[in-house]
């Protein structure tokens, strides 16, 4: 959302995700909180930190060039990686999921992991809520209006800065939530912020800037082809995702649902 709608190149998105991950492991391992109780706080922590950064740093660069925005946000990534390493060390953080999310079951000869199914469900629900709130609420319309034309939006009395701050917080909060949800599968160490940045960028560009549905479709397509590739064509391994991206961008340079 920040990248596509507000036209801000936010490379620090995965830093917010990493923050969410660390919030969850700290609350679980340090304070003994149950996994689900930590999720709202992972969302909240990422959202709050992002708003502070937005008010203090990002807003100064809304009109700056893409390069300036990249430099600022990649700097934030470096700082976040160093901070995580300083506080938690460079080791992988252990996450223990509740028992009922463990294990797997077999349906029609196919093995399903419970937690992975849970993640698929969560992703669907969040995407639906996001699309609905952006397409069918007045606030969503105000955000789209502000993205289309800031001056006119202000000229009608829309609080453009406020709408952007909320949108940004929402996007970052969801990154935090995503980070917290993903660490049980992909693990968590300070390099998280860099490792998944590339995937985020691939997904956004393949899905089309500013399209939530597009990002979802691209994420699903790339994720499935990535995993399927590793299973069925292990020789190609991690390269398949880049080939798929290349193919899709050659087919639709603006992305699956992109307008620009």
């Amino acid at each position, binding site marked *: 959302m920040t990248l596509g709608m507000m036209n801000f190149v936010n490379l620090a998105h995965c830093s917010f995700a990493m923050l969410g991950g660390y919030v969850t492991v700290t609350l679980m391992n340090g304070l003994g909180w149950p996994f689900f109780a930590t999720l709202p706080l992972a969302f909240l922590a990422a959202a709050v930190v992002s708003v502070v950064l937005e008010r203090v740093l990002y807003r100064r660069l809304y009109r700056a060039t893409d390069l300036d925005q990249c430099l600022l946000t990649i700097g934030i990534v470096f700082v976040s990686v160093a901070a995580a390493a300083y506080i938690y060390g460079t080791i992988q953080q252990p996450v223990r999921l509740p028992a009922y999310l463990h294990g797997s079951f077999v349906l029609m000869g196919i093995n399903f992991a419970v937690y992975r199914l849970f993640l698929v469900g969560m992703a669907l629900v969040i995407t639906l809520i996001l699309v609905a709130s952006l397409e069918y609420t*007045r606030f969503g*319309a*105000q955000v*789209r*209006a502000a*993205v*289309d*034309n800031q*001056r*006119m*939006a*202000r*000229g*009608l*009395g*829309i*609080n*453009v800065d406020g709408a952007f701050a909320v949108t940004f917080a929402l996007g970052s909060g969801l990154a935090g939530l995503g980070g917290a949800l993903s660490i049980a599968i992909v693990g968590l160490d300070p390099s998280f912020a860099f490792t998944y940045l590339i995937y985020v960028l691939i997904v956004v560009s393949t899905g089309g800037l500013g399209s939530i549905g597009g990002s979802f479709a691209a994420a699903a397509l790339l994720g499935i082809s990535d995993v399927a590739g590793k299973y069925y064509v292990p020789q190609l391994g991690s390269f398949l995702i880049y080939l798929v991206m290349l193919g899709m961008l050659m087919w639709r340079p603006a992305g699956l649902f992109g307008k620009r």
Partner: protein
Amino acid sequence: MAETLLALREVRAGYGDSVVLDNVTLEVPAHGSVAVLGRNGVGKSTLLLTVMGYTSLSRGAIVWRGEDISRLAPHLRPRLGLGWVAQEREIFPSLSVEENLTVAARPGRWNLKAVFELFPRLAERRQSKGNHLSGGEQQMLAMARSLMTNPSLLLLDEPLEGLAPIIIEQLTAAIRRMALEEGTAIVLVEQHADIALALTENAIVLERGTIVHRSGSRELRDNHALLDRFIGLKLEESAHAPPG
């Protein structure tokens, strides 16, 4: 005498360091109407942009109902009752016609039903995206969108520019209804001097950023010599005039 809604006091304004308007003093009473005439590039649009807070004001003050709003953030001004219809219409392309209307609406006399009654064409196109409209429809939408904020004063920036005569007729009727029947005050920047003067009570003429003439609109309309001197070109060229 009616309350003064908007007052500009010895305003000097422009963009960055360049001064476009200088020493502009103007009062618009509640329910009043002022035509702003002048050739291209004399600062007519800048005058409206200055009221909305989009230029740098280096001298003077903008006063709304007796309060200085010179330093007020642009997005807070419409909430006081200022409406602005931009010259380029500036419809939000990714919003539908209906969303364009409701996105910034504030409660009052003008609601969807009322603006659809004023512009039936918009009702037919309510689900279309903003960028799929003709020029005339866009202008109707821009005007209706501003009305939906229920302004006490509407700033109209060349609402008739580049439109077919039949559309001009419809829009003129709508402006007349807003101003005369509904009592919305208007400041009308327009190249079609004849129409603008017929729609308003008072008129000012701008030349190189300052007011060079002010009078009643009827008086100016009847004074062909003056009209010819200030804006003569516009009366014949209005159909072909470039935006400005």
